[in-house]
């Protein structure tokens, strides 16, 4: 917002691009592989900086209706995980699955964009 540029996300992206396009290709074998892993990790971090806040809002809005007794300001993801494990939704798993599918799409947008595009057997 009011900080200097490049901001955190731009810095991280710049280092990631450098690792993948400049340093990495000049390395051999295991080192090259690790440079690519490093770039991949940094890009996840960059996307998380961009998307985490809006995802948290969307997750809270999606989970709250499933957890009428939970503190709406609390950790609804953990409350949902515990409720599922306790068998609370055993008679209606499809409803929870539908909500969680969208939650996982959001996580994939950060961790592996496009993974949910491919229909895998």
């Amino acid at each position, binding site marked *: 917002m009011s900080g200097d540029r490049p901001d955190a996300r731009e810095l991280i992206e710049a280092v990631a691009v450098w690792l993948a396009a400049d340093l990495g290709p000049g390395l051999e074998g295991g080192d090259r*592989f*690790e440079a690519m*892993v*490093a770039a*991949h*990790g940094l890009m*996840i971090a960059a996307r998380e900086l961009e998307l985490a806040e809006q995802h948290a809002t969307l997750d809270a809005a999606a*989970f709250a209706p499933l957890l009428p007794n939970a503190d709406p300001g609390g*950790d609804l*993801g*953990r409350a*949902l*995980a*515990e409720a*599922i*494990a306790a*068998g609370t*939704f*055993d008679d209606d*798993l*499809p409803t*929870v*699955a*539908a909500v*969680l*599918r969208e*939650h*996982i*799409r959001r*996580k*994939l947008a*950060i*961790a*592996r964009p496009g*993974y*949910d595009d*491919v229909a*895998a*057997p």
Partner: protein
Amino acid sequence: MSEPPDGELIRAALAGAGEPIAGALELRPLPGGSSRDLWLVAAGERRWVLRRDPVGERAQTSREAEFAVQRAAHDAGVPVPRPIAFGDFGTPGMLMDYVEGEAIPRRVLRNAPSGLVGQLGVALRALREASTAGLGEAPGDPCVVAIDAVRAELDAAGDALPALELGLRWLTLNRPPPAAAGIVHGDLRLGNFIVGDDGLRAIVDWEFWHLGDPVEDIAWLCARPWRFGADDRPAAGLGSVAELLDGFGAAVDPQRLRWWDAFSQLKWGAYCARQAALRRDGAHDSLERTVVARRVAEAEWDMLELIDL
């Protein structure tokens, strides 16, 4: 590189197994990403592999038990390196024949001989027909054992993963009837078998073996994370599940396979989640393991697709 094992211990073990060597013995470390300490043992034209626990590590699995299962598999005609001797080589380990060939996944995929998937199926058939005598007590319900193990992994990781919890709940509520237990390799995938021009030469790395439902190995072999992008070849990125089942030679209930397919994603997801916790605890500082933890979302996605609620 770890300190080399004592050549005299190896010489004595080979002599004790009826394969004495007279001349000089050469030891070379074998790279390859195994969690165990691997050494190539050469004497003249002859070759063996020593596989032992890394020095200084408190091993989570038993090399003696691994020797026993590899011998059982070998006796049953499963392609595995012939096990020769178990003993103390500085740390517990086993000597086995050296098997020439390629194990690196990308290389195997580039030059995969046709029929490899069928051969994997046939190997799994031999494994399911292998005697389990002397390999310990079989679990009453392999699915319950599997669920309990994943539950423990998730609890140890400590993160809130509602999608994995949903998968675990579905698995708990939809267990197939307990199967007669057989030998399960426990980590059967590209990278754990040696391939030559003639096809499958040896299944290696039996570290995670257990007695259980043989369908578990079929499902793990066909799991999406190790198809290396080849989603059109679900059996290890090499071919079709039908080819694999053809070699396996026994009817596999589709619901049972689907259960173990879903379980495979859950096990993989729990593994991913665990890597982050282990790093926080200082148990490792591997970049690859740290970043792989973020693949948990992929496991959650694939698991939801499989159970298709």
